[in-house]
């Protein structure tokens, strides 16, 4: 009888323990709501809208690798390896505390095995080993988005530099749960990258990867969103004067740090290295290879604003330029345009 009672106490005790452990996650993570969603993924320059969540939830991210030939400049093409068919890869937006379940698929027609290293993952390789996927297969792994901020993801299969140089990168934004970014009129996705080809800038036809130039860190092209002119002319970004703009900017490199600058305006807010430190009134912000930043600004008056890498030969000679075109009424109190022009005879 005594023994039976004792065993009952044991049962009760362990049941109590179980309940306690269910109520509070042992690792101190926020409890998941039990809801789940499939993440909306977008191609640059589009950013998915923020999703209102009642609490941390499971977010499923479906990425498919495509090895495709795409234009890098007028008349020049390159065989890219991509996350989702475009360069840069899909933009992913989750909220801090979410359980991100990544499904990485590599079609049977692929030539290479691929993988993904999320800089937002807390774990070895950023998920690279867990997502190492032969052609014709899908890998699934999960991670908790512990740190808020803007993070790079990229392929991490050997030879890693070539997988990266060939287009396998993108951004994931982990929104802070308690203080999400304030609303703005426009959000855009911009990614700087280098392309190393055996041919010269301006050569036409299918361009080959140059390992020599890549090791020497002398790119043929430095571009925004995968190609020269990706945000020029008909594909420039359009806003209205007086509107607020937020850019999620990544720099995959693979080699060069970006001196990211927009000609004709200042960043009201620059989220240094994509993290929680916010700087203000910034002209040029440094983005290391494998890093990112968020910039916010107000376009005060109409006109064309050039986004550049202010290591300026890259903008002028290698393609690192994109345009934001603002329309709307002039405000001469802020900017006058040319008021007077005359001959000058002085020495």
């Amino acid at each position: 009888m005594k023994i039976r009672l004792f065993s009952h106490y044991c049962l009760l005790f362990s049941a109590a323990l179980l309940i306690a452990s269910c109520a509070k996650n042992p690792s101190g993570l926020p409890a998941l709501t039990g809801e789940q969603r499939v993440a909306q993924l977008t191609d640059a320059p589009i950013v998915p809208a923020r999703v209102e969540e009642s609490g941390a939830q499971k977010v499923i991210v479906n990425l498919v690798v495509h090895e495709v030939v795409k234009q890098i400049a007028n008349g020049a093409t390159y065989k890219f390896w991509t996350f989702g068919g475009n360069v840069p890869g899909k933009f992913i937006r989750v909220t801090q505390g979410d359980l991100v379940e990544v499904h990485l698929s590599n079609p049977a027609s692929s030539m290479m095995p691929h993988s993904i290293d999320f800089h937002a993952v807390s774990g070895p390789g950023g998920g690279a080993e867990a997502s190492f996927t032969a052609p014709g297969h899908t890998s699934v792994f999960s991670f908790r988005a512990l740190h808020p901020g803007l993070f790079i993801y990229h392929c991490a299969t050997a030879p890693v530099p070539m997988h990266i140089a060939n287009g396998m990168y993108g951004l994931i934004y982990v929104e802070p749960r308690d203080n999400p970014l304030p609303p703005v009129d426009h959000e855009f996705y911009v990614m700087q990258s280098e392309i190393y080809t055996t041919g010269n800038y301006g050569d036409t036809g299918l361009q080959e990867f140059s390992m020599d130039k890549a090791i020497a860190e002398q790119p043929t092209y430095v571009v925004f969103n995968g190609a020269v002119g990706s945000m020029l002319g008909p594909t420039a970004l359009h806003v209205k004067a007086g509107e607020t703009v937020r850019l999620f900017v990544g720099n995959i490199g693979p080699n060069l740090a970006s001196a990211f600058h927009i000609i004709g305006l200042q960043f009201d807010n620059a989220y240094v290295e994509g993290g929680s430190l916010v700087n203000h009134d910034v002209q040029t912000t440094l983005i290391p290879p494998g890093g990112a930043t968020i910039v916010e600004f107000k376009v005060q008056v109409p006109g064309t604003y050039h986004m550049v890498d202010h290591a300026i030969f890259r903008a002028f000679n290698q393609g690192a330029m994109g345009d934001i075109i603002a329309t709307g009424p002039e405000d001469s109190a802020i900017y006058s345009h040319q008021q007077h022009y005359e001959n000058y005879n002085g020495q």
Partner: protein
Amino acid sequence: MKVMQTISKLRSIIAALTITTVTVPQAPSYAFAKHIHPFDKLRAGSSSFIPHPSSLPGMVRIPSGFYRPFYTTKGIDSIRIESFYMDAAPVTNAEFLEFVKANPAWARSSISPILAEAGYLKRWRSDFEIGDAELADKPVVDISWFAARAFAKWRGKRLPTIAEWEYAALAPIVRPMFASGNAKKALVLEWYSKQNSRQLQQASSAMRACTLNQNADGVCDLFGRVWEWVEDFNSIIIPSESGSNLGALCGAAAAGSLDPTDYATFMRFAMRNSLNANDVTDQLGFRCVK
């Protein structure tokens, strides 16, 4: 799945042990020449670029020599490779059809998913029919390691080890142009980057064996045609600090490798490392050795 992985892991261990037993790390005549490529050291001379006569039809003789593993392992400087015969070209669909006809258990509709996953021989019209006549002389793909091995056994042959395959691949290329050293590395990398699109582009043209390239030993199409199964495909534990296989993935790979600029070889090792023994893919075939 688990069973299959265990089988393949066991195979790998056995294969790795087999290699270890033929290791001659302290060959004194070689020790002083550490920085000379084994091929240059061991095969420089009058007979270098003349294929060795072979009495076996469709096979060429690979002379013996030393192979320095691409991923270096403590205590192993080089592995002695005994002379062997290698198929001059990858196994074709027509050849594989003969095997399937003689061994119906390996037909598409009969094979167990443990031995080959879905997609096995998917380009064929039916179990015993290739269908597309132009496919007959092209390398067979969409076959598993188990199937490749069974074919080899049926032919009285076997699959090459990684060391043998890579050793054979060290010979200079002689067709369509001569290339060795860095020029060869660049050429092979270029072929790899075109491999996929070339296959698609030339899908309609006749593509018999030995059409793309040939090396000094007379081995054809080692590069840029299809990836090839090897006996111990997943036995290489690529070094990494965590002790896991991350070396295959991250920058650490370069630290443990013989030549961090040899991207083409990194690709082969990454590909092999990604596979399970019942995997089939559109770019993966094989050739045999004896």
